[in-house]
Every structure is written in structure tokens, then in C-alpha cells.
């Protein structure tokens, strides 16, 4: 029976951040990863916001395989037959340290695990953890490949399904309304073509979000991120909504229809799809978080539910990195105390409460409910589309005054509905 100070389950961003931090302090740590290599089972939309995590891992970022620094933001609101797009760029995005970068997880995670190994962490790939080992109710190891491995603490970074916290009784199986499925293609394209097409410079990139008819009124949306020599094109749809609404069609068909939209097809034209991936995304926010610690157990990353969709920004990776970091710091403090029970490990929650992680989750605790408003995915895109259609149309005969056009669409009952929706949006 092998013994370590700390066992980390899952070589994703949370697990690797914890391993990197622990190994840096000389703690004997092993990361168990079921894939062929770290990153082999990991899929993200592909955008990492660096500001919140830069200082947690000093010196890590200069050599990191980041794809492109995002200097151009865009969003498209899609009605059935028309759409409205805007772009944003600003000096703060182009000058100085990048706010966010596109990344490809198989590349990034593999590299990150190398940095953790250099510091002394042991990474065991092709190793599936099937259970926790408990003694007197305290977690004291895991079962992997039929063998028992023991440690003072186990950090569960086992991904969005959160199977280990479920086994430990820290949470019930997830409810479908709290999760979305993301489908993504990686589409290879010449770096120069990408820069020209998205009007960015060398090493610079664009991020674009899509919402509206592409999800047939269901909660969700599309994304496009530029990588160095590829595009990440994806569609995210609520699993709960998919389960309820038969009319929307199936997920692969929605993705195909999204790809074929006249707003999207020219962006990926000439590209060659090289991978088709999918990932489940926690969308329940604060209310749906897992229990974060037990006796001998900490939970970080997707496994804890750390992803937050605010409409304009969709974030998960920096919460994973930060929660892994704080889990490691908690273990380092617990080692000094020589105790690993839930009372001592509860300091993890406290440090998350004091960090941007749980502060963000508290600030935006009503956001999932507000964003679930179906008006946002059908009614408003159509309204804006129709309004713009009438403003831009030049008829054969005389054109109506602008105010008449506006009043035709913005009726009193429409304005009333909007007011109620804005009141809701004000809560976020």
C-alpha cells in the first residue's frame, strides 16, 4: 500500500494548481489522472481570465502555452432570420498584460503538469479512481486500479460530475436544471487568416458569443474563440431545458444549425475540423455548489461547481485554478496543525469566502435564475431584429417616420414586459 501526504484526484486545472502549490512547499503529492496524459479528458470553451489568478502562480505565465490574448470582444443576438452584432475593443485589452487568453486544455494541462512535476509532484496517468477509502468516517485514501493509496488528505478535483464528493455524502447527484452541455469543434485555420478575419494582430485574438434562436429558445448560447492556428466553436445548452423541450431537436443538430448560420459560416470558412468534443458545465451558481470539505477531503474546481455564467462572461477555469490553490494552502496549514478533520479543513471555505471565488458566487447568486428568462433567447432577439429590419428597410414607396417604426415595435405592453425584465436584471 502506497502512502503520500496528499492525493489529488484529477489532473485538470484545479488538481494541477493544487499539486503545483503543494509540491512547491515540499509536500509529497500524487495526482491520479484517468486519461492517457493530463489534459486527455479535459475540454473547455477555451478562455482563461488571467487577472484573478496571475499572482497566485508567480512566474508561471511567461512560458505558458497560451494561444492568443483576447483584444476584441463580440456578441451576436440571433433572431430566426436576422441578427444584431456588436464588437468591443479597448486600450486596456491591447496594452500591457492580457486580461484573458484563449487556451486549448490538452496542450495547457499537459504543460502545467510538467511544471508541477518539476517541483516534485508525482503525476500518475491512466489511473482511474473508483472509490474513497475511509477509516472511522474519515477519508484516508482512494481505490485506484484495484489498489489502495493512502494519504492525510484527498483533494477531489474529479470534474463536473463530482462522483467522489457524491460518494463522500457531500452532495446529492446533480439536477439537470443546474447543468448545461457544451459541444465544441476545434477547427484548424492558418494563423494569418485568423488574424485577418478577426482584425487582430499577431498573437492577438477575438472572442465572440452568440445567443438567441441558435438554442431555439432554450437557455444557452454559442461561442467562438480564436486560438493560434485554430478556432474553438461551441454551443452550450441547458440539459434541463433539453430534457423538457422536445421541439428544439437534438444537441448535435442544434450545433450543426449553429455552424451553418450565415453569421457563423463565413467565420469558419476554409477551416478543417480536427476534433469534436463535449463537456458538461455547472450552471447552478452559488445555490448548486457542492459541500467543500469533509474529514480528510477537500473539493475543488468543477467538482465543487465552480463555474459562473454571467451572460457576457462565462468563467470556470480561473475558479478551478484558485480553488486548487486555496485547497493546497489549507492543506499546508493543516499539516502544521497536524490535523485533517473537517473542522480544520473548513479554513478552505473561509479562504474562498475571502477570495474572488466565493465573493463572485455570492454577488452573482441570482444570475442563473435571471438569465434563465426565456425572453432573452427568443423574444428580445426577434424584437431587436425586427426593429432594425424596419429601420434599415427602404420601401418602394414612402418610408414611415422613425418614431412610428419605434412605436410599432415598442408598444406599451412591450415596454411593460421590458421594465419587469430589467427589474430582474437589476438584481445581477
Amino acid at each position, binding site marked *: 500500500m502506497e502512502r503520500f501526504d496528499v492525493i489529488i484526484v484529477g489532473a485538470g486545472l484545479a488538481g494541477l494548481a493544487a499539486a503545483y502549490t503543494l509540491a512547491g512547499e515540499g509536500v509529497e503529492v500524487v495526482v491520479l489522472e484517468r486519461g492517457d496524459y493530463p489534459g486527455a479528458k479535459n475540454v473547455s470553451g477555451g478562455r482563461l481570465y488571467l487577472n484573478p489568478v496571475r499572482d497566485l502562480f508567480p512566474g508561471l505565465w511567461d512560458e505558458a502555452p497560451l494561444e492568443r490574448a483576447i483584444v476584441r470582444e463580440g456578441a451576436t443576438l440571433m433572431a430566426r432570420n436576422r441578427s444584431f452584432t456588436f464588437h468591443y475593443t479597448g486600450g486596456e485589452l491591447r496594452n500591457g498584460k492580457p486580461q484573458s487568453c484563449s487556451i486549448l486544455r490538452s496542450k495547457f494541462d499537459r504543460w502545467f503538469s510538467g511544471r508541477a512535476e518539476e517541483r516534485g509532484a508525482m503525476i500518475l496517468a491512466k489511473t482511474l479512481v473508483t472509490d474513497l477509502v475511509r477509516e472511522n468516517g474519515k477519508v484516508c485514501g482512494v481505490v485506484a486500479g484495484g489498489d489502495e493509496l493512502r494519504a492525510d488528505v484527498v483533494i477531489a478535483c474529479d*470534474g463536473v460530475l463530482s462522483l467522489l464528493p457524491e460518494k463522500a455524502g457531500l452532495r446529492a447527484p446533480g439536477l439537470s436544471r443546474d447543468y448545461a452541455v457544451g459541444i465544441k469543434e476545434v477547427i484548424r485555420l492558418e494563423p494569418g487568416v485568423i488574424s485577418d478575419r478577426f482584425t487582430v494582430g499577431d498573437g492577438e485574438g477575438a472572442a465572440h458569443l452568440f445567443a438567441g434562436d441558435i438554442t431555439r429558445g432554450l437557455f444557452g448560447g454559442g461561442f467562438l474563440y480564436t486560438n493560434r492556428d485554430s478556432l474553438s466553436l461551441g454551443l452550450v445548452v441547458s*440539459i434541463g431545458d433539453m430534457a423538457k423541450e422536445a421541439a428544439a431537436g437534438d*444537441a448535435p443538430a442544434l450545433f450543426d444549425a449553429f455552424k451553418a448560420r450565415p453569421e457563423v459560416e463565413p467565420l469558419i470558412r476554409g477551416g478543417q475540423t480536427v476534433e469534436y468534443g463535449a463537456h458538461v458545465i455547472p450552471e447552478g451558481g452559488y445555490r448548486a455548489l457542492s459541500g467543500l470539505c469533509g474529514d480528510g477531503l477537500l473539493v475543488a474546481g468543477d467538482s465543487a461547481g465552480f463555474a459562473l455564467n454571467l451572460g457576457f462572461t462565462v468563467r470556470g477555469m480561473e475558479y478551478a485554478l484558485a480553488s486548487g490553490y486555496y485547497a493546497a494552502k489549507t492543506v499546508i496549514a493543516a499539516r502544521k496543525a497536524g490535523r485533517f478533520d473537517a473542522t480544520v479543513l473548513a479554513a478552505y471555505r473561509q479562504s474562498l469566502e475571502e477570495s474572488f471565488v466565493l465573493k463572485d458566487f455570492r454577488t452573482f447568486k441570482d444570475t442563473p435564475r435571471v438569465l434563465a428568462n426565456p425572453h432573452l433567447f427568443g423574444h428580445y432577439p426577434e424584437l431587436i431584429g425586427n426593429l432594425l429590419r424596419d429601420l434599415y428597410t427602404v420601401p418602394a414607396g414612402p418610408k414611415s417616420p422613425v418614431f412610428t417604426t419605434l412605436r410599432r415595435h415598442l408598444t406599451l405592453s412591450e415596454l411593460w414586459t421590458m421594465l419587469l425584465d430589467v427589474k430582474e436584471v437589476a438584481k445581477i
Partner: protein
Amino acid sequence: MTDLKTRLGLNVFKPLPAPHIRIRPGMERDPRLRAAVRACPSGLYEEGADGVFTLTIDGCLECGTCRIACGTEVLEWGYPEGGAGVQFRFG
């Protein structure tokens, strides 16, 4: 439009020694499985004319959508053993 099977063929899959997800015996007609037919990104679930649902595991992306959509009363759900199944090169 690329056929879904062709697209899945772009991925690296290592052989699965045994299916890691199964419809539980006696649950093959459970209507909750309809959610997986719609939501599975690989289209691995099918509803036959006789109302019996089937699952073909080849092409599974191990995303967990079906576990969330249908629940564990209907599905016996696990990850494949270490080193088996999909291996993302880009992710």
C-alpha cells in the same frame, strides 16, 4: 454538414474493454431516456419503434450529459478504466 460519425472519427479513441455506461436492466423503456436521445452530443442513444431505448458506447465523449439528464436510477454510469476511451488532443 459533416456526418456525426465522421466527425467523431476525427477524435482519438482507445478501445473500451467494457461499456462504462449501461441502461439498467428493466429500464430500457423508461421515458427518462428520451432526454439522453436529445442531449447526447454523440447521438449514442436511440429509441426504437418498439419503445425500447438502446445505447451504443462507441464514440462516447465521457461528458456525463446522460447521467445528468436521465439520472442514476436509469443509468449505471461510470468512467472507463484508466487510459481507455476518448483522448483529446486539443481539448
